[in-house]
């Protein structure tokens, strides 16, 4: 392998991992705080992608970038207040079932309105085309190009991740959420209204799915089934990383993205590589890479 191809595969891996990371971050955030596995998280991504297509078509792409995450935030909070909160005291199986049912309903409604097929998602002019990477990076030889939009996706993902970590690490809200992830009981005893904050966390998870939908939509697909197709690898990311661990999810997403990129030439291996990694990791570390003892036993 030449240095160019290694570099390109690294970049591809980064980009593939970026989408998984965005979806998995929302999943693991919601799981870690609320203890709910959201099977409808893929549906939120799908919903965001559809909203982005419509808004981008009517009001321009920049409007979609601003509006869609806000819309998803509202949807997330409405979902938590209207449905999920009644399931905190029910068995975990019920939580899975109700979010699974929700995913079906959302998918079918979208299918009803927009049809079952992939709808085109036009990139804005500033994101179209390719970037000539050899002009910026000295060690590359000859001519190296990469789709601009995929670079933007990587950048946006990185920004989102940093913003999320900053929010959780450096704000009072983040402090309470992190404490709530560890010891929700203790926090309640201290008189902190964690349910209100956890509703915001659910909205936050949905918001991240919204960002993923806007920027990932043009790359993945905009079809009713796209959410569920992304959900399965995202679950793997969460499980490999260790449920409820944000850093673990990032590492796992990057790992799977790279694995997919570097097996691209062996098509049959590429299809199952992420599952093989999951088997190996889970046999060695049943709690995932950074999973803590006591979380979800």
């Amino acid at each position, binding site marked *: 392998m030449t240095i160019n191809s290694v570099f390109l595969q690294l970049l591809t891996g980064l980009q593939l991992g970026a989408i998984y990371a965005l979806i998995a971050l929302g999943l693991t955030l919601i799981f870690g705080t609320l203890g709910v596995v959201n099977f409808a998280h893929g549906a939120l991504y799908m919903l965001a992608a559809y909203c982005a297509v419509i808004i981008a078509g009517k009001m321009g792409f920049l409007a979609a970038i601003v509006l869609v995450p806000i819309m998803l935030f509202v949807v997330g909070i409405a979902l938590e207040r209207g449905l999920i909160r009644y399931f905190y005291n029910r068995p975990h199986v019920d939580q899975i079932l109700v979010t699974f049912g929700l995913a079906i309903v959302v998918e*079918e409604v979208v299918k009803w309105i927009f049809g079952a097929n992939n709808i085109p998602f036009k990139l804005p002019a500033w994101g179209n085309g390719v970037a000539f990477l050899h002009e910026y990076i000295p060690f590359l030889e000859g001519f190296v190009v990469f789709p601009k939009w995929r670079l933007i996706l990587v950048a946006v993902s990185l920004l989102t991740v940093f913003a999320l970590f900053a929010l959780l690490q450096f704000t009072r809200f983040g402090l309470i959420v992190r404490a709530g992830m560890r010891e929700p009981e203790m926090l309640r005893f201290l008189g902190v209204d964690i349910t209100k904050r956890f509703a915001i966390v659910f909205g936050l998870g949905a918001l991240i799915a919204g960002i993923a939908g806007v920027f990932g939509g043009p790359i993945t697909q905009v079809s009713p089934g796209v959410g569920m197709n992304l959900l399965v690898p995202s679950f793997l990311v969460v499980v490999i990383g260790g449920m409820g661990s944000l850093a673990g999810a990032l590492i796992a997403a990057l790992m799977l993205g790279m694995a997919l990129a570097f097996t691209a030439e062996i098509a049959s291996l590429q299809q199952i590589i992420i599952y093989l990694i999951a088997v190996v990791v889970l046999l060695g570390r049943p709690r995932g890479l950074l999973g803590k003892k006591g979380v979800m036993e």
Partner: protein
Amino acid sequence: MSARSKAPASARNGLTIAVFAAVVLSMPFWLPLIGGYEALATKIVIWAIFAVGFDILLGFTGYLSFGHAAFFGTSAYTTGLMLKHVSADVLPAMGASILVTVFLAFLLGVITLRRAGIYFAILTLAFAQMFHVAALSIFQGWTGGDNGLTMSTRPELLGIPMTGLNVFYFAAAIAIVGFYIALRIRNSPFGLMLRSIKSNAMRLEYTGVYVRAYKQIGFMISAVYAGVAGSLMVIYEPYVATKFLHWSTSGEIVIMSVIGGVGTLIGPMLGATFMLYFQNVVQAFIGEQWKLVLGIIFMLVVIFMPGGFMEGLRRLRGAVTPGGASGAGADSTASARQPAE
């Protein structure tokens, strides 16, 4: 506990089996009366086998698997390949399918049963999806990829062609035996162990029971039911679709079980009947949106009636005969918030 449980278990089982057999065997006659057709009866019986087996896992041990499509589908492909390349007789095909399913269930059980609850659901979903992906890529030469696996010859059972009602009665006989075995399991010490896992696995572990082994065996039994159902599906329509391995098949069996009533054995079969009836008969009236309606019904059941149709029936009985049925006091409050359907 209802008052009826004072009767000896074996006598009650005998009655249940007799009624069940009568209902199932007469299905080709009564189903057309309500808008169904003969072939639908076969499908219902096959899915009922799948559902009973699924209930042994979900209903007894409380483990929600989102990966039973792996057993259903792999067994279907094994049956298809056996029928196509080895013999048109169904017995060797089914035998091979069961062997493959048992082996597969052992492997998947070892990996997934390390964790419970949410973890288990996610892991089964992911690994079952691996089989779907593998069937479409690595094993494409065997499985026919997206086109599915078609067979040229009709399968037969010891010389009897497996067509029309023959398939139905073959499947119905297996369903009755399968239901009987499930009832026996429920009343056996082994079944008690499985149900103890559901109520408190840790306490069971502390009493010195090797819980992992019971879970593993329960998982494998449940998988064999799924495998038999998958095998019968291929005998019924000599064709294997890749959808059999897709997670949506796992989703369907989950929906059926929950709508019908988890843990009741009868309930999941009722759910299977309801769903297939809905899919094939009601669809004609409401068109493409049947899936949406089904999804909404599923959500309503999960939210308001977690015990499914069986809980609904119990509540109805409690409402009709106040004070008659035991636990009517609890039922009357429950029936007050029963959703209108």
